[in-house]
């Protein structure tokens, strides 16, 4: 019954997206969008709790795959209450002015086995940059799980300005880790 409802819902929500094998909506409780920054050389993990993902992907035809992600910047958890207050401010994400960040894929290619790479445009604040992220796809029962890690440079997006612009306390490289689980629509 729930499965039936999920399929109905998936069909309803994604009716507009044409392309390869369509996927149901992202299962928020199983999906995760995290980042690891290095502070004084120490990796510190944070995450975004709210994000919307739309994707279509068929491992047999990866080039036709598409993904669009929208991140609610106010949902950031940077690892501590104090950091959370800081990172929504002007020097970091300036969430008032830039409430959303987004990723829009431009191409997907196969890397062999269950490995793929998606390239696209990542927009954070008012900066858009080309990024590429390798990822794996795994079938888990009725679900498809997409998992990957890539690195961005925070300075490319103007993240961490003023006193934070220096990289000796917070490193420029920030690792992004994602795991999206969606019901595979048959």
């Amino acid at each position, binding site marked *: 019954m729930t499965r039936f409802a999920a399929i109905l819902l998936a069909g309803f929500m994604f009716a507009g997206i044409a392309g390869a094998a369509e996927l149901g909506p992202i299962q928020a409780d199983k999906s995760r969008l995290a980042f690891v920054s290095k502070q004084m050389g120490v990796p*510190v993990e944070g995450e975004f709790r709210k994000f919307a993902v739309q994707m279509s992907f068929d491992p047999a035809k990866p080039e036709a795959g598409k993904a669009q992600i929208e991140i609610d910047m106010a949902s950031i958890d940077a690892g501590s209450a104090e*950091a959370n*207050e800081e990172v929504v401010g002007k020097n970091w994400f300036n969430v008032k002015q830039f409430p959303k960040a987004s990723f829009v894929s431009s191409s997907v290619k196969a890397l062999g086995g269950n490995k793929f790479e998606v390239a696209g445009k990542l927009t954070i604040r008012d900066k858009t940059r080309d990024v590429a992220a390798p990822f794996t796809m795994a079938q888990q029962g009725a679900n498809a799980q997409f998992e990957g890690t890539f690195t961005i440079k925070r300075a490319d997006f103007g993240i961490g300005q003023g006193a934070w612009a220096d990289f000796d306390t917070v490193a420029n490289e920030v690792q992004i880790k994602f795991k999206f689980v969606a019901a595979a629509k048959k």
Partner: protein
Amino acid sequence: MTNGLSQGRYTATAVTLHWLVALGIFGAFSLGLYMHELPLSPTKLKLYSYHKWAGVTIFLFVLIRLAWRATHPPPPLPAAMPAWQRTVAHALHHLLYLLMVAIPITGWLMSSAKGFQTVWFGLVPLPDLLDKNKELGDTLALVHKTLNLTMAALVISHVAAAVKHHVFDRDDVLARMLPFLDNNKVTR
């Protein structure tokens, strides 16, 4: 005071370790209080790291000190000291040793629970003994602070006792931990 001189001395190593650890604790303690009040800034992150590195370093010296102490019994207290004072002195010293161990460990555990690993001098990562858990992190921060305030109170009594021995009892209890006073004693 005729029998103010006790037989026996602390070894030079024991004296050196006592003062190294004491200086380290004064430093880490002041830095801890100061950094805690700062608004978040790169400076604050740096000071937190320095505090943790210093704390771990002190912890290592404390371990060496305990090993030394276990193999080199301290000299007996002056014979003139009343029994209750000996008991209090010994109890206080044991409590201080306990706190010297418990404070760095709670600092380490707190860092783990808060999700900020300790990497000694940015080089040697200490294993996170606890998983990230905000409530536990906050509790451990309170424990760390409370133990510190307890130690501060004990150290004040400790110093007061040392001064009392020197000024009122005129024995060599302070001098045997502060060798430059010792020389005065000998030439007197």
